[in-house]
């Protein structure tokens, strides 16, 4: 896989309008909800991994509840985010919890059950999502301006 192919995949799991996305705007993650057992899975998939039934694509709300958090204090191979940065496990009301980077958040300001929102983040010139504490100013991480 070329680097470009890899970066393009960054946005494959996001169904928001990436032409109009700007760094820091609230975005909805796309997920799959089972037509039979109602289970929600992220990212979207072809069918339910538990019962095998068909699924519908839904948009998760932009607000999640902090279920867990940590930080990455040393640079990770291939990461477009420079350490240190926080990682949040955000729980959505549909019953699925999603891992997301939170480069503008200090874990010292986080508590379990805090509310965070999913916002667009520029990663290596592409838009992805991250978590930010709700109401906090989103700074983004600059980026190349090659946003889509």
């Amino acid at each position: 896989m070329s680097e470009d192919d890899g970066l393009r995949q960054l946005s494959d799991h996001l169904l928001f309008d990436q032409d109009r996305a700007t760094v820091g705007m609230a975005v909805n993650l796309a997920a799959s909800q089972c037509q039979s057992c109602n289970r929600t899975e992220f990212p979207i998939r072809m069918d339910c991994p538990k019962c095998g039934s068909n699924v519908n694509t839904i948009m998760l709300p932009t607000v999640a509840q902090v279920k867990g958090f940590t930080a990455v204090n040393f640079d990770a191979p291939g990461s477009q985010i420079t350490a240190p940065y926080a990682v949040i496990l955000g729980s959505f009301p549909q019953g699925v919890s999603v891992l997301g980077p939170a480069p503008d958040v200090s874990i010292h300001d986080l508590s379990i059950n805090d509310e965070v929102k999913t916002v667009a983040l520029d990663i290596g010139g592409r838009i992805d999502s991250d978590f930010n504490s709700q109401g906090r100013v989103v700074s983004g991480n600059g980026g190349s301006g090659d946003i889509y």
Partner: protein
Amino acid sequence: MDNVVIAGVGIHPFGRFGAGYRLLGEVAMRDALDDADMTLRDLDMVLVANVGAGMATGQNVVELVGRSGIPILNVEAACASSAGTLYLASRLIENGAAKAILCLGVEKTPKGFVANAGFEAWQIASGLGVNPVYFALEAQQLIASTDATIDDLADVSVKNHAHAVSNPNAMYRKACTREEVLRSPEVCPPLHLLMLCAPNEGAASAILLHRDVAARRQIVNPVRLNAVSVVSRSADDWFVPAPSLQSDGRTSLTWRASLEAYEEAGIDPTDIDLVECQDTDAASELLAYRDLGLCAAGDEAGLLRSGTTSLGGSMPVNPSGGLLSKGEPLGASGLGQLHEIVQQLRGRSDLRQVVGANCAVGHVMGAGHNASVLVATR
């Protein structure tokens, strides 16, 4: 499983070396053949566990030992790769499809974070392709939901490093204190550097025989392999590299693997004399206490504090020093555990010998959602 015995084990110490994987593997393979008093021509098959070396890894190692023309197959299941070889070999022998199989694990894992344990490109670029993130979140949950503390996490590392002092095959053989662990850099809070195992290099090997062959070879009172289970992800498991999990109703790969193995071996946790478990990080060892049935949920830290799992206790865990002290050559770690287990059951573990060891359990977890538990007895 009634028919599988372990005729020999071999190892290349774990650490970092100038030699390539071929030489590391050759050392462990020849060591096992010598231990079993066998040659390559006595084998029906060689199964080789490796994650990172690339194409025909096993063939390239066995080439250095000889050319007998037997099947050589490579097995990859991340950190459970060794377990994959043992699972396949034991079933082939138990069911009469083979009589003698050598399992080899060999690896040269680079230093630092393991690069890409099955993550998608967007996870890696987003800074989420970091295995200790998963371990840290589990550790945080353990501390939040039980009486375990950060000191307990440090003490797992202290215990295992103390065990490794007398293990010539471990990379780190220096005892450490709780304060030293807590002073080491935080990698992914609450996990400090000395609470995490170091990916490294090494090789380990075991020769499995049908018991009839072992009897013909006059192997007296051999170690028996009573069970090897391997399970993969079910709907509500969560491990590296899954980007999400169900918020409620988590299940445990290790729990299922242990139930299968204990049933196959006909044992329960009270029969276990020692355990080698996947202490990729300190919290993982405490979680293994629960998921292997060594204690009730919530009693993980209490079991550690009681001394039960230390050498001298009634059920030492990781008497080898575990991955925290040995380091983790990904494809070789499970067979490294088995090397320790066999030597313990033979009573040949010198200063770290578990007195009266008759029943031992090995446990590994691998990225991509693999878990394995084995039971060996004497």
